[in-house]
C-alpha cells in the first residue's frame, strides 16, 4: 500500500502528439514481442522472421511494388473507415462492401456493353454505389431502429460472400474457364493500367490518395464533417443542436461503404481481371483496414502511412509463408495482436503516471 501511494495517476485531458505516436509505436513493439513467442514455437528465431519480412517487403524491386499494390485497397478502405468511425459507426463490414463493389464492377465489365472509354469510369461509379448501398443498409437499421452496427455489418459480409460464390458457380460462371469457378476474363478496356510490368494499378492509388485528402477536408473543414464529428463525439448534443443522426450516419456509411466498393473495383480490374472466389478477391483487406484506420487514430491523412505499414506486413506474410514454411495465419495472429495492443494502449494516453520521490508523512 505504501508503494502504491507514491505512484500518482492523473487524467490527461488531451494527449500531446508525441504521446500518441510513442504509445502507438510502443503497442506495435509489444505486438512484435508477443508474436515472437509464436515464431519461437515454430522453432524460428523471431529476429530472423522479422528480418525476412522486411527483406521481403523492401529487399527487391518486386518486394517494393508488391507492397505498394497491397497498400492500395487498405488505403481506400481505411480512409472510408476513418469517416465511419468518426461518426461512431463501427463498420466491420468493409469486407462485404468490397465484394459487392467487385460484383458491380464485374457485371459492368462483362455485361454492360458500354463503349471502352466509359467502361472503367462506369465500373468505379458502379462499385462505389454498390458498396455505399451495402453500407447504408446497416446504417439505416442502426439509426432508425437501433440495431447493433457491429452485428449487422459483420453478418452482411457473409451475405456478400455467398452472393459472389453463387455468381461464380452459377449464372456468371465463365464458359471459357474450363469448369473453374471464375467469370470470363474482363475485356481489355475494363482492365486498369499498371506502372510498367508491376501490379500497381495506379488509377486506384491516385483515387485513394485523393480520397484521403478529400476525407481530411471533409471532416475538418466542411459542414457535413462538423455534423459527423458532433454526432460521433456527443450524440446528445447533436440531437439538441438539431443535427439529424440518421442523415449523418447514412452519409458517413455511404462514403465508407463506397470507398470499400472502389477498393473491390481496383482488385478485380487491376489484379485479377475477373471475378473469382471471395477470399481471393478480398484478401482480408476489409478486416486489416480496421486496424489501419485505428492506428491512424481516425485521421484520413495518416491512413496513407498506416496502410503502407500494414502492406509491409501482408507482403512479409507472403514471404515468410514461402521462405520459412509458416502458415499465413501467423500474420493474422500478428495483426490481431497489434489491434489488441493498440486498443489496450488507448488508456495509457488518457492518463499521466508520475512517481512521487519524496517520503510521504506516515499516517
Amino acid at each position: 500500500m505504501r508503494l502504491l501511494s507514491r505512484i500518482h495517476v492523473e487524467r490527461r485531458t488531451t494527449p500531446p502528439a508525441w504521446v500518441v505516436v510513442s504509445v502507438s509505436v510502443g503497442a506495435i513493439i509489444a505486438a512484435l514481442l508477443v508474436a515472437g513467442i509464436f515464431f519461437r514455437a515454430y522453432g524460428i528465431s523471431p529476429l530472423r522472421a522479422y528480418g525476412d519480412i522486411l527483406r521481403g517487403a523492401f529487399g527487391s524491386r518486386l518486394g517494393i511494388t508488391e507492397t505498394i499494390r497491397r497498400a492500395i485497397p487498405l488505403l481506400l478502405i481505411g480512409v472510408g473507415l476513418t469517416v465511419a468511425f468518426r461518426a461512431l459507426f463501427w463498420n466491420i463490414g468493409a469486407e462485404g462492401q468490397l465484394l459487392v463493389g467487385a460484383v458491380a464492377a464485374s457485371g459492368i465489365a462483362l455485361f454492360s456493353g458500354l463503349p471502352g472509354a466509359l467502361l472503367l469510369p462506369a465500373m468505379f461509379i458502379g462499385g462505389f454505389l454498390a458498396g455505399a448501398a451495402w453500407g447504408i443498409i446497416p446504417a439505416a437499421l442502426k439509426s432508425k431502429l437501433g440495431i447493433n452496427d457491429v452485428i449487422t455489418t459483420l453478418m452482411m459480409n457473409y451475405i456478400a460472400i455467398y452472393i459472389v460464390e453463387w455468381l461464380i458457380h452459377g449464372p456468371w460462371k465463365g464458359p471459357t474457364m474450363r469448369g473453374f469457378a471464375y467469370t470470363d476474363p474482363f475485356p481489355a478496356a475494363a482492365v486498369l493500367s499498371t506502372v510498367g510490368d508491376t501490379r500497381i494499378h495506379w488509377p486506384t492509388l491516385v483515387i485513394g490518395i485523393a480520397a484521403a485528402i478529400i476525407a481530411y477536408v471533409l471532416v475538418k473543414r466542411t459542414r457535413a464533417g462538423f455534423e459527423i464529428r458532433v454526432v460521433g463525439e456527443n450524440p446528445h448534443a447533436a440531437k439538441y443542436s438539431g443535427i439529424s443522426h440518421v442523415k449523418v450516419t447514412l452519409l458517413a456509411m455511404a462514403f465508407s461503404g463506397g470507398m470499400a466498393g472502389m477498393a473491390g473495383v481496383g482488385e478485380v480490374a487491376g489484379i485479377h481481371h475477373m471475378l473469382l472466389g471471395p477470399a481471393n478477391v478480398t484478401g482480408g483487406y476489409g478486416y486489416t483496414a480496421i486496424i489501419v484506420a485505428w492506428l491512424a487514430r481516425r485521421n484520413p491523412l495518416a491512413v496513407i502511412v498506416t496502410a503502407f505499414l500494414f502492406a509491409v506486413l501482408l507482403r512479409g506474410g507472403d514471404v515468410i509463408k514461402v521462405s520459412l514454411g509458416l502458415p499465413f495465419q501467423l500474420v493474422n495472429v500478428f495483426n490481431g495482436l497489434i489491434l489488441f495492443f493498440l486498443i489496450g494502449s488507448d488508456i495509457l494516453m488518457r492518463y499521466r503516471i508520475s512517481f512521487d520521490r519524496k517520503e510521504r508523512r506516515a499516517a
Partner: protein
Amino acid sequence: MRISRPTPRTRHHSSSESESVVAGQAPAVELRGIVKTFPGVVANDGVDLTVERGEIHCLLGENGAGKTTLMRILYGLYQPDEGTIVLNGKTVTISSPRKALEHRIGMVHQHFHLVPTLSVEENIILGLDEGPSPLLHSRRTRAKIRDLAKEFGLEVDPQAKVWQLSVGQQQRVEILKALYRKADVLIMDEPTSVLTPQEVSGLFGTLRSLVDAGLTIVFITHKLDEVMQISDRVSVLRKGTIVGTVHTSETDKRTLARLMVGREVVFRVEKPLVERGAVVLSVKDLHTTNDRGLKALNGISFDLYASEILGVAGVSGNGQHELSEVLTGLRRAGHGQAVLQAQDLTHCSAREIADLGVAHVPTERIRVGTVPSMTIRENLLLKRYRQAPFSRWGFLNDTAAKTHAEGAMQEYSISAPHDGVAAKLLSGGNIQRLVLARELCGDPALIIAAHPTYGLDVGATEQVRETLLQQRSNGAAILLISEDLDEILQLSDRILVLFEGEIMGVLPADQADPNEIGLLMAGSRRQEVVT
C-alpha cells in the same frame, strides 16, 4: 456483534467503551488532517472536523467544496490519503460501508440507494444477517419498522413497493434503513434538494426527535437558511479545507456566506420594473409522454409574454423536463399545441425551432449542451454553423468562427487561454457561460432555461441570473424551470406549479408565499389562475 439501541430520551450517551475519554465525553466523530486527492483535484486538503455527540452539525459549502467526499470517507466509501478518523475517542479504520455500520454510522445519500421493485421492509432488511434462520422474520421486522417509524415521525407503509412511493417517502425509507441498522451517527447528504417545503419541515421534525433520542447528525448542505434553521453548530468547507466552525446561535447568514464563498455576497439581484409585452408563446392543452411511455404532461395550457419570466416550480420528475423538450422540438407532443408568434411548434424539428429564435439552456449542460471534446470555438457554433458567415458552399469559415468566438468569450467573460481549448477543460461556470453565449446570441424571442444555475458557484450564479434579467429587459419571454424555489421567487414575474404533468396553479411572484407553493407542489390545486 449485536449492539442495542441507545435508550430513547437520553441526550448524553454513555461512552464507557471508549478508553481515552477527555473531560468525560469524547466527541462522536473526530476527523483529523483528512487529505483526499482525485486525479487533478484535491477534494479534501487537511480537514479537521469535530462533531459532538447529540448535535446537529451542518457541513456547509459550495458545490465542489469537498463536503460529500469528506462524508464518504467517514462512511467508508473512500479511503483517505492521509489523516485519521476517531470515533468516541478511539482511532478506527473504516474500510467499507459495512465497517461504518459496525461503528454505527449511517448515511442517507443525495441519490437514494433503494431497489424500486422491492417493498419498503425488504429494502430495509436488504443485506442484513438476521440470525441463523433462512426465513425473513416478516412479522417481527414489520413491528420493529412500525415502532421506529412511529417514534420518529417517519410514517410509511412497510409493505408498499418503493416505486410507488414519493421521493419524500423514499427518503424516509433510507432514514429507517439507517436506524434499523442501529446507526448512532447519521449523515444526511443534501437531504432537502428533492423535497417540497412541507416535506422539509417534516424532515426537520424527524431530525430533532432523533437528536432527542441521542443520535448525532451531520447535515450536508449549501443552503444557508437550512443551516440557520436546523443546526446546533456549523462547519464551513471551502476548497477542501474547513474555514471555520461556529455555533449557529452566534452567527448569521451573511457571515456564513462570506466564509463559504470567500467574499461579500449580494443576496438579491436587482429586478428592474419592466412592462410585459404581447403574448410570445401560447401553450394549449399540451400532452406528452416520458421516455418510459408514461404520461408526463397531461393537458397543460399557459401563455408567456414578452419581457416576462415565467417560473416553473415543482418537485423534479413532474413534467418539467418533458415540457422543455416538447417546446424545443426534442420530444413529440401527443396532443395539443404550442404556438410561438403564430407558428405551431409541435410539428417543428429541433433545428426549425432553434432557427425561429428559441434559445434552450438545457438541464444537463455538459452531456447535452456541449460537445466536451470539441473546442470553445466549435461549441459556440453548434447551432449556427450552417449560417453565413460561418458557412459558405458547405465549407466552414474558420476566420469568422474565431472572430465570433473571441467576441463571445469577451462578452460573457468565459475564461480560457484561447478559443481553441476543449470545452471539457472549462469549469462548470464557464461551460454555462459558453452555453448562454451561444443560445442568447441574436436576441432570441423565447428562452427555455432549465436549472440554469444548478451546481454553479455563487459568482457564476449571480452572472447567469443577471443575464436572464437583462434578456427580460430586452423583451425576451423566458420560461425558467428550476428546483431552487428561491431562484424562482427571485427572478419570476409569475410562477407556474407543475404536479404530475398538470398545472396546479399560476400565481404572481410578488404575492407568492413559499408555503402555498409547497402545497401546490405536493398536488393541491389552486382555484384561481393568474394570467
